[in-house]
C-alpha cells in the first residue's frame, strides 16, 4: 500500500498537555484505530482520550463512533471535556 497521506491531529488543552505536543500525524483509518494509535503515543494521553470528543474535518464525533473513517490528509481535533464559564 503506497504510503497514504497522514491525518493531521490537533491536540487541545489537557490532551496537548498529556501528549506533550499540540500537533501529531498518524495513519488514516476508522476513528477507533486512529485513537488506539494515539493512545500508544503516551500513557497520559491514553488516560485522557476516553473523556474526549473529536472533530473529524470539523464534524463532531465521539469515542463510540469507532467506525467513522478519518480520511487521508484529514484533520482530527482532540477535544477534552469542555469547561467554559
Amino acid at each position, binding site marked *: 500500500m503506497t504510503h497514504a497521506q497522514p491525518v493531521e491531529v490537533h491536540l*487541545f*488543552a*489537557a490532551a496537548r*498537555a498529556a501528549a506533550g505536543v499540540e500537533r501529531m500525524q498518524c495513519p488514516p483509518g476508522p476513528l477507533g484505530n486512529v485513537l488506539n494509535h494515539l493512545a500508544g503515543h503516551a500513557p497520559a494521553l491514553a488516560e*485522557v482520550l476516553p*473523556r474526549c470528543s473529536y*472533530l473529524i474535518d*470539523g464534524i463532531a464525533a465521539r469515542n463510540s463512533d469507532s467506525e467513522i473513517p478519518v480520511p487521508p490528509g484529514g484533520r482530527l*481535533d482532540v*477535544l*477534552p*471535556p*469542555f*469547561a*467554559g*464559564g
Partner: protein
Amino acid sequence: MTRMTVIRRADVVTDPIVVGDVETLVADPSAGAVVSFSGDVRDHDHGRTVATLTYEAHPTATAITTEVANEVAARHDVVAIAVIHRVGPISIGESALVVAVSSAHRKEAFAACADLVDTIKERLPVWKHQVFTDGTDEWVNCA
C-alpha cells in the same frame, strides 16, 4: 415567537468584560426586565487556593457562541441577548462568561439567561487551566 429576538452580541474576547456594558447592550424601551449572569473566577477550587487561571478556546468557539445564542433565542420570547466568553489569563474576581437577556417580563429573561449559560457551558469548546498556590495545576473537568 411574537418578535424576532436580537442577538446584540455573541463573542469570545481576551479583554476584561464589563458586566454593565453587556447589560446595556440588551437594554430596550420595550423590555421591562434585564437579567444577567456573570461567571467569575473564584479564589478556591475543591479546597485549593487558585493562583492563576487561563482559558483556552478552540478556533470554532466564536462560531459556536453565535450558534448557541441563536438556538436559545429561538426557544424563548425575549427581546435581546448578549453573551461574551473571555479567554486567556483571567484574575480572581474577573468575569469569564457574561450573559445578559432582556424581555418584556422577568420570567422569560430568567429562563432564557439560565438556559443560555447552561447551553454555553455544555457546547462551548473552551478549557479552564488552574494553577494553584501549591504549584500544582489542573485542567478542569479533566483531572
